[in-house]
């Protein structure tokens, strides 16, 4: 980013963050202040109204109680007095009181039977407070009756009753009715300072409004108020168990000073507070619509928002101007540097401010001035040098005139050379006859053009000589490698880069791509540098290679099939053998009835035959694998002494059984390079054969020794031996020894044929010396490692 936008954007970001955060703080603060003020106003209104109502009701109560104390009135119910006198006295007094008591609209005196003795009403009718209520609640104290509609006027009234006592005994009641509209409702509907939506109203303990609503007509005792504030209040009205009059009991969690926001009875969200009027168990509520109450807050937020915007815009303009003034000298210097870069040393930087930047501009101007001076001096020096060079050149051409006579002498020499050239041409002719009869294709390239071809090359390319001579080198090659070839033969390049031997594709006349091997050599042709190319057609070779690969793959295929066949055959042979073995074992174990001792011996023979048959199958399988080279795995250094001892240990029980005497004699031998498993196989065969074909208490000698770096192993026994006519067949496959002499089936056959294959695979040889009835000696010889090699392999150096 360039300098100016970067600095400007930093300033703007700072400005925005600063204005928005301060605006947020101011609006939060003023929101709190305004709300507190609104709440206070509402609280004060409800407080003062409630106080007002309470004192009015108190005034009524005291008034009624003072009337009850007037003797003319209490005497009216004193039946011990003269009836006419007490009534007329009472009547007079009542009317007098009514004229004094402005708010009262009716005063009546009632005896304990509920009979109205005196009434100021012309149509006395029934008492607004029935006798049972009076007997219950007004016997000893003043009773404040609820607001009700006057019987004949539909005027909201409330009645207060007080006991009339004669000599301390209650004999009747005075009931005074007051019009609520005149004084009580005046207090509540006085709405100065309440705005357009503010009101105060009173609700009784049944939840009905007992004062006029600002918004609903005829609300008194008709409008049920069911707002959150009433619900909450109801939770704290406790029925007094003694008097049955519901009363309010203070709960510490119930904060009367609380201002709430809730949905008012008109369904509009209002801000409200309340006061409890204890004497009547009323709730006085002061409400104001939140839309009106919070109008100042909204106005304030709008004001702050606009102010913030103005600050950002004016701040942005100021920042733009000051940042531009700040960065202008820097940009000027930057411009100056570019001019100097271009070589314009006359450019003068105009950034004249009296700070570090101004100083920088001055130094830049001074620097460019110095460079200008240095450059002029350099140009002057160059001019002087040029003049000197011209002087030297002139001297040189003077001297060259002197060398003219050398040239004439050279021309004479060239004449002699042309004679030699004639002889050279003769030898060239001889050379080309050799080239033309060559089996290899030959062509000569000079300056990327074909200059010479022989007949074999023409045959490969299917072109005549005339068509090939002067042909572009590129046209000989397959399209994909033309560019590459051009580089190879580039006459300007160093001759050494041409590879001496490479394979490529030539494009013949018929469009065939011929694989060829190219040998190149540098030569001189007709007096100029050239490249001679010897071409070998690889088409036949490749055909042969493909054929060999196919044959090899077929061979591998058939090898694999052969192995699969061998495996399958072994499986097929072993499966029926399993059935036989199972039956035999069942018979031996007594699952098929009982057998006598002789029969059991036969069963044993059967078991042994099965084992032998399986050995034969395994042997055949191994033999096939060995012969197929299957077991030809990696050869390692093998110690034959260890292997011999290992096998003898394995076979020890067999020697023990026949009480044979076994002797092992190991001379000074080195390890051999062999496959250990195969060597074990060889030793196992030879030693177990010796065990089998030697009678009890016979002798078996095993000898390992070396003669002329070859390992010799001999296994000699004094057993039955092999007849002269059988001797040559011992190592043949499926050879079975002489049955008549041994009395049981011999085990040579497969085993020894495998042994021979293994020994021969290890570049060794095997033979046998034997005489019938006297015993046999099996010999085999394997190449042995030299001592030095062993040490090298062992890593002793």
């Amino acid at each position, binding site marked *: 980013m360039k300098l100016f936008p970067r600095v400007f954007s930093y300033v703007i970001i700072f400005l925005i963050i600063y204005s928005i955060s301060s605006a947020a703080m101011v609006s939060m603060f003023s929101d709190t202040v305004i709300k507190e003020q609104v709440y206070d106003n509402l609280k004060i209104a409800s407080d003062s109204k409630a106080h007002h109502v309470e004192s009015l009701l108190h005034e009524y109560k005291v008034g009624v109680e003072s009337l009850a104390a007037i003797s003319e009135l209490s005497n009216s119910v004193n039946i011990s007095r003269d009836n006419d006198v007490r009534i007329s006295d009472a009547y007079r007094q009542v009317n007098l009181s009514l004229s004094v008591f402005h708010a009262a609209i009716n005063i009546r005196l009632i005896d304990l039977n509920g009979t109205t003795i005196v009434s100021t009403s012309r149509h006395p009718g029934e008492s607004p407070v029935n006798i049972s209520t009076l007997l219950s609640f007004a016997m000893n104290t003043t009773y404040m009756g609820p607001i009700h509609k006057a019987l004949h006027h539909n005027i909201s009234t409330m009645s207060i009753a007080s006991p009339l006592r004669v000599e301390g005994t209650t004999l009747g009641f005075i009931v005074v009715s007051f019009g609520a509209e005149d004084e009580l409702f005046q207090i509540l509907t006085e709405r100065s300072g309440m705005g357009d939506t503010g009101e105060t109203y009173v609700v009784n303990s049944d939840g009905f409004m007992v004062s006029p609503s600002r918004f609903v007509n005829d609300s008194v005792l008709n409008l049920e108020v069911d707002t959150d504030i009433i619900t909450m209040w109801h939770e704290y009205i406790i029925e007094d168990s003694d008097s049955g009059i519901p009363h309010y009991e203070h709960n510490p969690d119930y904060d009367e000073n609380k201002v709430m926001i809730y949905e008012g009875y008109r369904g509009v969200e209002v801000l409200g507070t309340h006061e409890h009027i204890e004497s009547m168990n009323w709730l006085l509520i002061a409400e104001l619509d939140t839309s009106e109450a919070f109008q100042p807050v909204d106005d304030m937020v709008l004001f702050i928002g606009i102010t913030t915007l103005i600050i950002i815009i004016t701040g942005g303009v100021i920042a733009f101007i000051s940042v531009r003034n700040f960065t202008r000298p820097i940009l000027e210097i930057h411009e100056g540097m570019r001019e100097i870069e271009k070589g314009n040393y006359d450019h003068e930087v105009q950034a004249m401010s009296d700070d570090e930047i101004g100083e920088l501009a001055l130094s830049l101007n001074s620097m460019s001035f110095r460079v200008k001076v240095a450059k002029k001096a350099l140009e002057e020096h160059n001019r002087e040098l040029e003049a000197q060079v011209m002087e030297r050149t002139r001297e040189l051409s003077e001297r060259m005139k002197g060398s003219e006579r050398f040239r004439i002498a050279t021309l004479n020499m060239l004449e002699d050379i042309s004679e030699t050239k004639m002889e050279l041409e003769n030898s060239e002719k001889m050379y080309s006859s050799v080239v033309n009869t060559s089996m290899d294709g030959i062509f000569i390239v000079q300056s990327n053009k074909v200059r010479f071809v022989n007949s074999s090359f023409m045959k490969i390319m299917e072109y005549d000589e005339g068509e090939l001579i002067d042909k572009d080198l590129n046209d000989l090659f397959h399209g994909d490698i033309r560019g590459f070839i051009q580089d190879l033969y580039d006459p300007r390049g160093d001759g050494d880069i041409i590879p001496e031997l490479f394979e490529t594709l030539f494009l013949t006349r018929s469009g065939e791509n011929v694989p060829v091997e190219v040998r190149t050599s540098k030569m001189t042709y007709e007096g100029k540098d050239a490249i001679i190319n010897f071409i070998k057609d690889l088409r036949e070779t490749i055909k042969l290679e493909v054929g060999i690969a196919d044959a090899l793959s077929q061979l591998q295929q058939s090898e694999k099939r052969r192995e699969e066949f061998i*495996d*399958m055959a*072994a*499986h*097929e*042979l*072993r*499966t*029926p*053998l*399993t*059935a*036989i*073995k*199972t*039956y*035999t*074992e*069942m018979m031996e*174990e007594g*699952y098929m009835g009982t057998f006598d001792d002789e029969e059991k011996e036969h069963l044993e023979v059967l078991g042994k035959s*099965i084992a032998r048959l*399986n050995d034969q199958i*395994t042997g055949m*399988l191994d033999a096939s694998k060995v012969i197929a080279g299957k077991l030809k795995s990696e050869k390692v250094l093998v110690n034959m002494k260890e292997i011999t001892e290992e096998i003898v240990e394995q076979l020890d029980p067999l020697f023990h059984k026949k009480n044979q005497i076994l002797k092992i004699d190991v001379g000074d031998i080195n390890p051999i390079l062999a496959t250990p498993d195969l060597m074990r196989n060889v030793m196992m065969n030879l030693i177990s054969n010796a065990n089998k074909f030697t009678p009890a208490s016979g002798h078996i000698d095993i000898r390992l020794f070396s003669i002329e770096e070859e390992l010799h192993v001999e296994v000699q026994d004094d057993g039955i031996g092999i007849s002269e006519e059988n001797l040559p067949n011992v190592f043949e496959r499926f050879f079975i020894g002489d049955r008549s002499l041994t009395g049981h089936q011999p085990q040579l056959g497969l085993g020894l044929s495998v042994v021979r294959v293994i020994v021969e695979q290890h570049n060794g040889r095997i033979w046998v010396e034997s005489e019938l009835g006297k015993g046999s000696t099996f010999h085999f010889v394997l190449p042995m490692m030299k001592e030095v090699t062993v040490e090298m392999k062992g890593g002793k150096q």
Partner: protein
Amino acid sequence: MRIMLVEDDENLCLTMEFALKKVGHDIVGMANDGEAALNVYRDTNPELVIIDIILPKLHGIDVITKIKEMNTDAKILVTTGASHDSLIMKAMDSGAKSYLTKPFGMNDLITEIEKMK
């Protein structure tokens, strides 16, 4: 034990049935090829399957794999006459619990079945 036999050689199959019944096993099903083996397994749900690896129609390895798909807890004992170690390894990898190389006798068979319990 409820055992199912899969063996393409009918004689060996009957032999094993005869032998195993003698020692008190219950032969619930027999099959002579791979496809039949799967059907019989589905119908009989045996506790143990004794199966030859080399089978006609469906290879023993595939049969073992499919049986394991049907029931991951299936107990399988493979038998083989080929001395291919790789084939036995494949069978064990597919889910066989143990193996017997042919020719095995009654004693080998009973011992191996005891181990499978």
